[in-house]
């Protein structure tokens, strides 16, 4: 995989000119590598990781277990893709185990999430049942720890 990808995978927050500096490439070369990653759909895009405890637009999130009936052609794909298209749906995964899809839904209020589930999701033909679990508190989001005491990384200024 290309160098930019390896650098991104380290999880550093870097802009394109910083990446260029670190890798010893020109900004154009970094852009070209990023373009390749996007073209291959390895890099889907950039979104900020927001703290769900503080971000009002994420006031309510729910994990919904959805059972659906598979179809002769394509299995779960058509329904899963259809469900995924709603803006309210943050992520959607096909699961092994007791249900088929795990759908993470966000909304500004309990009411909005509830009505999405009852009016939009449950009514889709092929959706057999839903079980909605509201998230109460986030402790870790996309790899970031939330409201935990900061690590004391104080090193001495000069050491042998």
């Amino acid at each position, binding site marked *: 995989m290309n160098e930019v990808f*390896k*650098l991104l995978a*380290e999880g*550093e927050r*870097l802009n394109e000119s*910083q990446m260029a*500096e*670190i*890798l*010893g490439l020109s900004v154009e070369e970094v852009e070209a590598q990023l373009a390749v990653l996007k073209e291959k759909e390895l890099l889907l895009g950039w979104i900020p990781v927001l703290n769900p405890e503080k971000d009002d637009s994420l006031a309510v999130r729910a994990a919904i277990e959805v059972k659906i009936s598979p179809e002769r052609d394509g299995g779960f794909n058509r329904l899963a893709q259809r469900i995924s298209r709603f803006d309210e749906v943050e992520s959607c995964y096909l699961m092994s185990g007791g249900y088929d899809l795990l759908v993470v839904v966000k909304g500004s209020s309990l009411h909005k999430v509830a009505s999405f589930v009852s009016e939009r999701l449950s009514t889709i033909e092929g959706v057999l049942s839903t079980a909605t679990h509201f998230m109460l508190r986030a402790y870790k989001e996309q790899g970031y720890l939330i409201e935990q005491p900061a*690590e004391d*990384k104080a*090193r*001495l*200024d*000069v*050491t*042998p």
Partner: protein
Amino acid sequence: MSQAQNRFIADHVIGLPRSGIRDFFELVAAMKDVISLGIGEPDFTTPWHIREAAIYALEKGRTHYTSNLGLIELRREISAYVGRNFGLEYNPNNEVLVTVGVSEAMDIALRAVLNPGDKVLYQDPCFVSYHPTVLLAHGVGVAIKTDAESAFTLKAEEVKKSWEPGCKVLLINLPCNPTGGVAERKELEEIAKFAVEKDMLVISDEIYAEMTYEGEHVSIGIFPGMRERTIFLHGFSKGWAMTGWRLGYACAPAYLTEAMMKVHQYSMMCASIVAQDAGIEALRNGDEAVKTMRQAYQRRRDLVVRRFNEIGLTCHKPNATFYAFPNITSTGLDSTTFSKRLLEEERVAMVPGTAFGKYGEGFVRCSFATGYDQIVEACNRIERFVNNLK
């Protein structure tokens, strides 16, 4: 200190030089907004799974002394790790000794083997404590030069040139702090032959082995005739980012381990049990974290070495460690002046090469165990400093 006060201090301690690092540290500590490239330890915190193992050990009430040699479970893990990664076989029952960092291991090794006046060959530049530890063990240090022309690799020819009658021990640190120098396999083999020929004991500090970026890490202990005369030193500080835990070990044939153990048991008794429990976890499940850290260091190395050469400070690419050792003679300044002025004028701390021995003159040590943003900014400041000197 007055002469009257000195009457209580041992002569060989009065004679010990103050560490050049300590002077420099005090300068830096008095300043604000300094970017420090002078820190000889990882910027990573110990991986969480290792810390968690230590917390669990405390919860279970593991707060007692361990065997003088260290926990047998840890010694077994060490034996397996050293066998797997260094090709050296040691019996965990009587050939592995867990110590309070490699510093203690070095100290007890030298104290166990030196008679007053015995000579110790050691590479220069080297870690700051080598020569003082020799002096504290009443030995006499004999420096072996390493230089920039050969990327600070240890050359058999230089070892032979430096040898003199009375040299009992060869003390080496490969990969080397501060230079990043290593030794090629054929050189190391030649040095091993020479050690056998002159019947020297070799103390090999391989604390930076996990931070080898190109080529293989080779232990001197693997060569014919070396096992019986080699003390292998290693520890957790660098590879596993565990400096503050103070955990290291010495591996050596039983007769040497037994001698070191005597010194260890009457001075240190044992390493902290919590650190030892953490060490077991590090060796059992730490490979992935070590690899991730190594990759990050490697990229930072490429960045600093490229920038130093762009700036006009010739810098070899170190094959290992998280230190670059650029040549600053093109600025017309000596190491100490360069470091002090860079600190005062641009607020960047790099330790003068002379802190690591006389052959460090003309160089500074740059530790790149720090974040990209800090490195990028520090290099820009160094560039401005160097340009202003012209």
